[in-house]
């Protein structure tokens, strides 16, 4: 299967990245958005009806559990493995 980056179909994927992620920078160097409604939030909601599953309750705990499990896995991964 080939990855897609068609601009319409993947706009939400793009927004998830461009709006929430990226290099972290000291807060005292940048223009603060505190108190300003965060740009893009409404846009995203409108674009994709992207309420998280959490809203539905269904599988909420499950989602949190799997992510916790994954964090553990990652920690295990960095620990030295003893092969005695």
């Amino acid at each position, binding site marked *: *299967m080939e990855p897609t980056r068609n601009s319409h179909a993947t706009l939400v994927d793009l927004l998830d*990245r461009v709006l929430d992620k*990226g290099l972290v920078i000291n807060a005292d160097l*940048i*223009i603060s958005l505190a108190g300003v409604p965060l740009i893009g939030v*409404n846009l995203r909601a409108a674009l994709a009806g992207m309420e998280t599953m959490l809203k539905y309750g269904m599988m909420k705990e499950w989602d949190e559990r799997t992510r916790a499990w994954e964090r553990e896995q990652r920690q295990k991964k960095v620990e030295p493995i003893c092969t005695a």
Partner: protein
Amino acid sequence: MQHSDKTSTASTTGVVVAEEGKYLYCVADAGERVSLGRIGIEGHEVYTIPYRDICAVVHNCPAQPYQSDDQEVVKAWVTSHQKVVDAIWERWGTVLPLSFDTIIKGELEKSAEQNMKDWLKQEYERFKGKIEKLRGKAEYGVQVFWDPKLVAQNLTQTSPEIRNLDEEIRTKPKGLAYMYRQRLENLVKREIESKADECFKDFYGRIREHTDDIRVEKTKKVEPSLSMIMNLSCLVYRDTYSKLGEELDKINRMKGFSVRFTGPWPPYSFVGGA
């Protein structure tokens, strides 16, 4: 406006205008000072501010965040941001992208450009480390969905516990049946979760083999008929993503499952943190 006092103080003393800012797109693996032309947000000229062998990619702007209630305007801004990051990525191979609307400000005694240079200097080692880790790699999005109805149907056939309860309900009078149905719903929910758990761990292990790094993102409700059970950002060597694609094909072919595979994205999910 509160701002105006400061502006006049700054300009009359002839130092630096505090309201000047640099909109920051990304940090790139190049030490040149070049203009990339008017490819920025709203056609601004994009150029680099180098420090040693890395640079910040910016345009000049007032020290105010971009804000609008007009979705089309915001969409255009975000798309421009992404296009600049893409262009830089193409040109220099490795980028550390910033999120939309990151604007470095100037201070009374220090220009935004100086602030930017000091920042690059101060973070140089950290940025170099990230650049090395990300060289030759790209981010891909992997989302796995399943059809909960189909899964529930399968479960009613395969789980003896569910089948028993289901049969019991049929023999109960109406009043009691309601209670039993609730029990059945809870049971199905539990079994679905445990099935999802099993799938998650299985897929995660298989996908991880073909990636350099993984971030597990929150799952989302995208379509009413499909549930997302997995939402990953995967860091992958750009020339080996097809291996990941093959693995995803296998999952995509499973009955009731589907996979979305997007990218290549600049490594937005892998530049945060230390």
